[in-house]
């Protein structure tokens, strides 16, 4: 009985090496199949993600740049490193890059980043932004001793809005064309900005009122009013 197994499966050095070789080949085939399977699965997953992402975007957004239909742009400024993940570079105006983002909270955002200066973003409920657009008023930095710095407008507008009309405090008007659903412009004397929605309704933001209500100094740390 002791020699029984050896007789049934005789083990000598030659057959042992051959068996090892066969096992190695078999293992290599298994590994190759596993890797191939993973690659195919990844490709399928990528395809389905892309499809669902595209169809989801098409459903939720009336803003072309958020559906990935904007003109391809290559980031040119160092400020891009500060942009939130998932944001789309929509336009570059001078030193400022403007991004659009549909975030996980079902909000649409417009983000402006200026290399070597300030920046910011606003986000609003996607349904509202896609119907009316959104306008951010921001800027900075201001004087060392207090007060507000530059005045910068960034807008994300629905498809069909082709330009924005800017009105200065002295009544001067000028028009800036929309690029990939966004506009960004700096003007310290700005009074208002307006645009016509596809419905014909005019949307106006009173920039002067927003800027004038900001204090020249903040309140005490930790205080509320």
């Amino acid at each position, binding site marked *: 009985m002791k020699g029984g197994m050896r007789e049934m499966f005789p083990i000598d050095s030659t057959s042992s090496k051959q068996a090892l070789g066969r096992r190695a080949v078999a293992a290599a085939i298994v590994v190759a199949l596993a890797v191939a399977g993973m690659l195919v699965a990844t490709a399928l997953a990528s395809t389905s993600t892309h499809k669902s992402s595209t169809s989801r975007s098409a459903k939720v957004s009336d803003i072309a740049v958020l559906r990935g239909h904007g003109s391809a742009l290559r980031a040119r400024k160092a400020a891009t*490193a500060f942009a939130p993940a998932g944001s789309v570079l929509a336009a570059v105006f001078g030193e400022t890059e403007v991004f659009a983002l549909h975030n996980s909270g079902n909000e649409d*955002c417009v983000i402006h980043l200026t290399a070597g200066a*300030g920046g*910011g973003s606003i986000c609003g*409920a996607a349904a509202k932004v896609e119907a009316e657009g959104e306008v951010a008023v921001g800027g*900075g*930095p201001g004087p060392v001793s*207090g007060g507000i710095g530059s005045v910068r407008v960034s807008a994300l507008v629905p498809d069909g809005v082709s330009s924005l009309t800017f009105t200065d405090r002295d009544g001067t008007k000028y028009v800036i064309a929309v690029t990939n659903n966004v506009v960004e412009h700096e003007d310290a004397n700005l009074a208002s900005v307006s645009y016509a929605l596809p419905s014909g309704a005019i949307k106006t933001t009173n920039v002067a009122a927003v800027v004038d209500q900001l204090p020249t100094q903040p309140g005490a740390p930790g205080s*509320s009013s």
Partner: protein
Amino acid sequence: MAAILSRPGRVRQLLLGVAVAAACATAGAVAAPALATNEYFPSCYPCISSSDNAPENWITNVQAINHSGGGICATVWKNNGGGNYQEMAYECGSGGETATACSYSAEFVGHGYIKTETSAGYLRGRQDNYKSCG
């Protein structure tokens, strides 16, 4: 390789070294955020206000949300000493927005300031010293 594998003691030493290095890296990663600012304000939230100032801290960015649906502004104020603050960045949005103001400079001591554009509401602010904006 064969020599190493034939010496279980060496393998154990190698694994121990790797484990110690991994532990050090993990500890470092956990300890690093202790220097980060990520502070919500006001402390009485939820409460109604028209403007709120955060405590002084090392900051670069300020975010504001008006949960009542009105317009909102966020401002990053740098403390220059002597009671003087410098506005480093501000951002306002009309109509139920989240506004984030980012200074993109090295962090500095100061505090975030948020206010409604119209009437008082349930406001929530957050100040941080992160590199990214938003």
